[in-house]
C-alpha cells in the first residue's frame, strides 16, 4: 500500500491538508513507516509555520476605523483612510444613532462644512494631546478654562479633568486644552477654539481617525475638537455626540445627556 513513492508535491499538499481522505491516509501510513518521510513532513510543517508567521509582522489594517469615506490629510492620504461619521443624539429617547455619511471622496476635507479646522491645526492639537502630562505641556494660564458644563458631561463617563493647557494655532489664535484621564488610563483632550471675527456657523459633528487617534470636531459659536487614543469607538462617539448636542442645542436637558454618557464606560482598547 505504501510502495508507491510519495512525491514532494504530494507531501506538500499533505501538510496543507489538501489531499483527499484516501490519499491522505496512504501518505500518513507511508510517513509513519519511513523516518525520512517523517522528517520531510516535519520540515515542511516547520516551513509552513515559519512562512505563516511572516504575515503577522504587518499587523492588521484597522478595519473598524473605516467608514465609507476617504479624505486627504495635508495633501497625503490619512493612513490611507479616514473615517467620518455623523452622529445624532435623541435626548428625549436617550438613544444614540450612528449613521455613516455618504461617500464623498476626497472632496470632504475641502468641504466648507468641515473646513473650520485646518489640517495644520489638527496636527498641532494631536501633538498637544500626545504630549500632555509633561510639565512643558502646561499651557498659558490666561486661557479660559474649559466649559464646566462640558467637563461635567465628560466626567459622567468616568473621566476626570486633570489639567488644562493651550495650543497656539496657525492663525495665532490660542485654543484651550482640557485633559481628562480615566481609571483605566483612557486619555481624552477637549480643545475649544474661540471664534475669530465672524462667529462660525454650526457645523455637524465629524469623527475621524488619524492612525490610532480618534478625532471629533464640530462648531457651535466656537470650534471644538476632541481627541483620544484607543478609546472604545462607541464610547468616544457617545462623548462627542453628547458634547455636540450640548453645545448646539438650546434648552437641552443635560441630565438626559449625562444619563447616556454614564453608560459609556467601556475600557480603552489599548
Amino acid at each position, binding site marked *: 500500500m505504501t510502495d508507491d513513492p510519495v*512525491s*514532494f*508535491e504530494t*507531501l*506538500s*499538499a499533505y501538510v*496543507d491538508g*489538501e489531499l483527499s481522505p484516501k490519499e491522505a491516509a496512504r501518505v500518513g501510513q507511508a510517513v509513519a513507516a519511513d523516518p*525520512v518521510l517523517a*522528517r*520531510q513532513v*516535519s*520540515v*515542511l*510543517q*516547520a*516551513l*509552513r*509555520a*515559519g*512562512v*505563516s*508567521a*511572516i*504575515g*503577522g*509582522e*504587518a*499587523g*492588521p*489594517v*484597522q*478595519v*473598524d476605523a*473605516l467608514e*465609507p469615506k*476617504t479624505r486627504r490629510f495635508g495633501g497625503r*492620504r490619512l*493612513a*490611507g*483612510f479616514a473615517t467620518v461619521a455623523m452622529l445624532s443624539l435623541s435626548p428625549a429617547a436617550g438613544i444614540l444613532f450612528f449613521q455613516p455619511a455618504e*461617500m464623498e471622496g476626497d472632496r470632504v476635507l475641502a468641504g466648507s462644512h468641515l473646513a473650520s479646522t485646518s489640517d495644520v491645526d489638527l496636527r498641532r492639537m494631536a501633538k498637544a494631546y500626545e504630549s500632555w502630562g509633561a510639565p512643558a505641556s502646561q499651557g498659558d494660564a490666561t486661557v479660559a478654562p474649559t466649559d464646566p458644563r462640558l467637563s461635567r458631561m465628560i466626567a459622567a463617563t468616568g473621566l476626570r479633568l486633570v489639567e488644562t493647557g493651550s495650543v497656539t494655532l496657525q492663525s495665532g489664535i490660542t485654543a484651550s486644552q482640557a485633559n481628562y484621564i480615566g481609571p483605566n488610563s483612557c486619555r481624552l483632550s477637549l480643545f475649544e477654539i474661540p471664534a475669530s471675527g465672524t462667529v462660525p456657523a454650526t457645523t455637524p459633528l465629524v469623527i475621524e481617525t488619524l492612525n490610532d487617534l480618534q478625532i471629533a470636531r464640530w462648531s457651535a459659536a466656537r470650534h471644538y475638537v476632541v481627541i483620544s487614543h484607543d478609546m472604545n469607538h462607541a464610547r468616544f462617539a457617545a462623548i462627542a455626540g453628547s458634547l455636540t448636542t450640548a453645545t448646539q442645542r438650546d434648552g437641552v436637558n443635560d441630565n438626559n445627556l449625562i444619563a447616556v454618557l454614564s453608560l459609556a464606560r467601556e475600557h480603552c482598547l489599548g
Partner: protein
Amino acid sequence: MFTSNHWAMLHAMSRRLTGYAFALTRDRDKASDLVQNAIIRAMESRKVPDDDVAFRVWIARIVRNLWIDEHRAHLRQNAWLSASHPEGADFPADLPSEDLILNRMVIRQAFFALGTDHRDVLALVDIAGFSYDEAAKLLDVNRGTIMSRISRAREKLLRQLSDEGIVPLRASAARRGRHDG
C-alpha cells in the same frame, strides 16, 4: 454596496489580508496602503460578493491586482512561475533543520529572497489562509496548478535555506542515502 456583513468579513480577514500584502510588498507601510487602497476600490464597487469565500477571494484579488498594476513594469522582467520553473519540485538533498526553519529571521530572509511568483502563491496559502481551491479561483487556474506551484515555491525556499548558506547544512549523508536508495 458594503453592508455590515461585508465589514464583518473584512474584520475577520484583515490580519491575513495585510499579511498577504506584506508578503508582496515586503514593506509594512506599503502593505497597509495596498490593503487600504484595495478596500477603497472594493467600497466603490457596485457588486460586492455576499458569500464569505467569494468575498475573501474577491478582496484578495483586488489587493493582488493593485499590486500588479503598481509593479507591472517590474513584473514583465520577471517571468511568472509557470514559465520560469517548468520542472517538478523535489526535496533538496540537504535539509535544513526544523529548529532553524523556525527561526523567524532565517525564514523571513529566505522568503523575501524568493521571486515574486513564489512569494505570491505561498503567501496566498500560508499567510492569507486560502485553500487550494480558493487560491485557484483567485488566480484563475486549476487546483492542480496551485498544488504544483506551492510545492515548487516550497522547494525553492528549502533550497535557498540550504544552498545559499542562510542555514547551515545539517542533513546527514546516511539519511540521504537511505532516502535516495
